[in-house]
């Protein structure tokens, strides 16, 4: 049970009025409602339920002794026997002097006689009882973390606020410090070693920061928080910690998120949330150990949250539109339209068009991607069916699959359902599966791809060259085309005009007997060079950017003519 004064900075405390007489409840509510949030109960059982439900936020109970179902004295005894509830102060409302003594014996904090005294008296007694109870709470809570001797988190927040109060003009930093891969330390060397490291870090922090200009705590596990006067550089700390831990069986590296020169209008917790977000940014980075918060970071976080929150609505309202980018076969004299890639665009009602680069990674993280992808697959299939019906012509359209979808045992069923429901076939839909998907859990992915292929789907390995496939396994992969990672094109033409890597990939494709698709082709120079190297298919702004389905029809009609 935690009830500290910090909780009430912005809100009113909760008080329960338990009295079976409505008029008494209304009188007390009227007296107290400006200062407190007043909960009501009209009998003893109801009061008990309300107390249990609000045990962490209830500051005081005003209890009438004569109530139906469960009388006040019995309720009082029940509360005092319950370790979770006994800390909540109870003021008894009574008109009998005999009951006053009995209530105090049973643990009431005070009593208020009936008829009620002046409202001022009632309020003063209530506020005094609450104050006493909260002070008692503070004294009994643990001030120090047993392991390190630093403050516990509860105390830390309180002391950080006090620091602000006494040093209103100090420029303050909020720091969140974690040990890189600490769980592995515990795992490999045992808890005792882990604890030793934490103690060494604590000791080190105490030498770097003086108590006159900082407050330090261990929040949990390997997370430390420091609230200190502003410094420009914290590398001293990471260096020192590594130094004092040099006799440990593994090197210890701290990762520090710094929210520099805090906005003091934010509450302490929010300041350290910012420090934490910042520290998490460099979680898997082995070369950067200190990261500093800036506002755009927060905006990005909030923006990301907004996109994820609004996804279901956007999907229902069809804010996602599928665009088509043509792919041309360049083997002959003239480029010929061969297929298209379906690419999603989000037309947000207030934010305008949002780039897929912004929302796809978020949805991949949140698991929303499969809903979006299925929607795109279906749109693509419907568009193909529409072209066939109206124009009597179509080209295959490739759609993208995310890594997570490759684990879905119903994936083939999903595609079969889409094709049968839209009146298309497996030949109409190409599947782009990123190379990196094959790398982890290779066998499982390869089996799934084989299954798709056995059902007639054409598989393009996307982003080839970015996923570090072993050349050894490539020959066994079930694929129908290699799609060159865009970086090859960029690197080949940007810098020293070195197209040798592209030649190698084309040789690999030849060896496998599959065509090479180059995407991101923007200039005639690139187009001609790729043609000369023996690249089969080209996609990119040189021919066309991704366009809406209606606009894509012109490519179909051209091909037909």
């Amino acid at each position, binding site marked *: 049970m935690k009830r500290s004064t910090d909780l009430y900075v912005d809100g009113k405390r909760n008080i329960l009025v338990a009295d079976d*007489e409505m*008029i*008494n409840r*209304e009188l007390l509510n*009227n007296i107290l409602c400006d200062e407190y949030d007043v909960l009501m109960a009209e009998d003893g059982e109801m009061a008990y339920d309300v107390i249990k439900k609000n045990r962490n936020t209830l500051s005081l109970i005003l209890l009438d002794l*004569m109530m139906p179902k469960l009388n006040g004295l019995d309720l009082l005894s029940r509360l005092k026997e319950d370790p979770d509830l006994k800390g909540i102060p109870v003021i008894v409302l009574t*008109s009998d002097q005999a009951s006053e003594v009995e209530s105090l014996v049973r643990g009431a904090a005070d009593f208020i006689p*009936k*008829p009620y005294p*002046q409202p001022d008296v009632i309020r003063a007694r209530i506020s005094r009882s609450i104050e006493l109870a909260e002070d008692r709470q503070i004294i009994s809570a643990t001030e120090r973390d047993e392991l390190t001797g630093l403050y516990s988190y509860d105390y830390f927040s309180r002391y950080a606020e006090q620091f602000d109060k006494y040093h209103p003009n100090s420029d303050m930093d909020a720091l969140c410090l974690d040990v890189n891969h600490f769980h592995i330390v515990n795992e490999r060397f045992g808890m005792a070693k882990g604890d030793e490291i934490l103690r060494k870090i604590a000791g080190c922090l105490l030498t770097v920061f003086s108590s006159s200009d900082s407050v330090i705590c261990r929040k949990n596990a390997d997370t430390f928080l420091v609230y200190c006067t502003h410094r420009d550089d914290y590398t001293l700390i990471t260096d020192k910690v590594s130094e004092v831990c040099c006799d440990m069986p593994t090197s210890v590296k701290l990762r520090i998120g710094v929210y520099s020169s805090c906005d003091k209008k934010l509450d302490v917790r929010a300041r350290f949330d910012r420090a934490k977000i910042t520290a998490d940014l460099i979680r898997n980075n082995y070369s950067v150990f200190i990261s500093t918060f800036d506002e755009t970071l927060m905006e990005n976080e909030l923006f990301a949250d907004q996109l994820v929150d609004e996804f279901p609505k956007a999907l229902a309202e069809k804010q996602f539109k599928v665009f088509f980018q043509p792919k041309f076969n360049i083997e002959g004299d003239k480029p010929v339209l061969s297929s298209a890639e379906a690419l999603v665009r989000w037309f947000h009602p207030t934010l305008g068009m949002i780039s897929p680069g912004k929302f796809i990674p978020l949805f991949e993280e949140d698991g929303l991607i499969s809903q979006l992808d299925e929607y795109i697959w279906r749109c693509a299939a419907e568009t193909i069916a529409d072209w066939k019906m109206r124009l009597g012509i179509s080209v295959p359209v490739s759609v993208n699959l995310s890594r997570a979808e490759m684990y879905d045992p119903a994936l083939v069923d999903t595609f079969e359902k889409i094709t049968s429901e839209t009146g298309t076939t497996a030949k109409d839909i190409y599947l782009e599966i990123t190379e990196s998907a094959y790398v982890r859990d290779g066998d499982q992915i390869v089996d799934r791809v084989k299954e798709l292929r056995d059902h007639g789907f054409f598989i393009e390995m996307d982003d080839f060259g970015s996923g570090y496939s072993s050349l050894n396994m490539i020959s066994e992969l079930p694929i129908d085309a290699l799609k060159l990672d865009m970086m090859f094109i960029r690197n080949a033409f940007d810098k020293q005009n070195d197209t040798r890597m592209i030649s190698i990939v084309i040789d690999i494709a030849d060896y496998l007997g599959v065509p090479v698709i180059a995407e991101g082709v923007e200039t005639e120079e690139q187009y001609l060079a790729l043609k000369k190297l023996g690249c089969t298919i080209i996609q990119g702004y040189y021919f066309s950017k991704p366009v809406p389905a209606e606009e894509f029809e012109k490519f179909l009609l051209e091909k037909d003519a």
Partner: protein
Amino acid sequence: MLTIDALKQLGCNTDEGLSRCMGNEAFYFKLIGRVVDDKNFQALEDAVAAKNFDAAFEAAHSLKGVLGNLALTPIYEPVYELTELLREKKDIDYSEYLKTISEKRSELAGLLV
């Protein structure tokens, strides 16, 4: 009509009652309107008639608390005395008390129309 003066004339301690209502007259009058219809008046009469002194005490005790808080002295006083007698479970003739209470309650109710 229910006014502070009329309540005073009946002998109510309106200063005290109003102060418990934070000086809000409308709120005070609203609560008085409610207490006149309090079901405990009937419960008290029934329980006394049935010589069920526990139930009678509970009803009287509840009324006492509310009437006292609203400072409706002319009804509060007989209810107070009655409550103390019932607490002792005295088997006596309560009809005079009940009559007084009923009369004073009617006088108050008369102000409400």
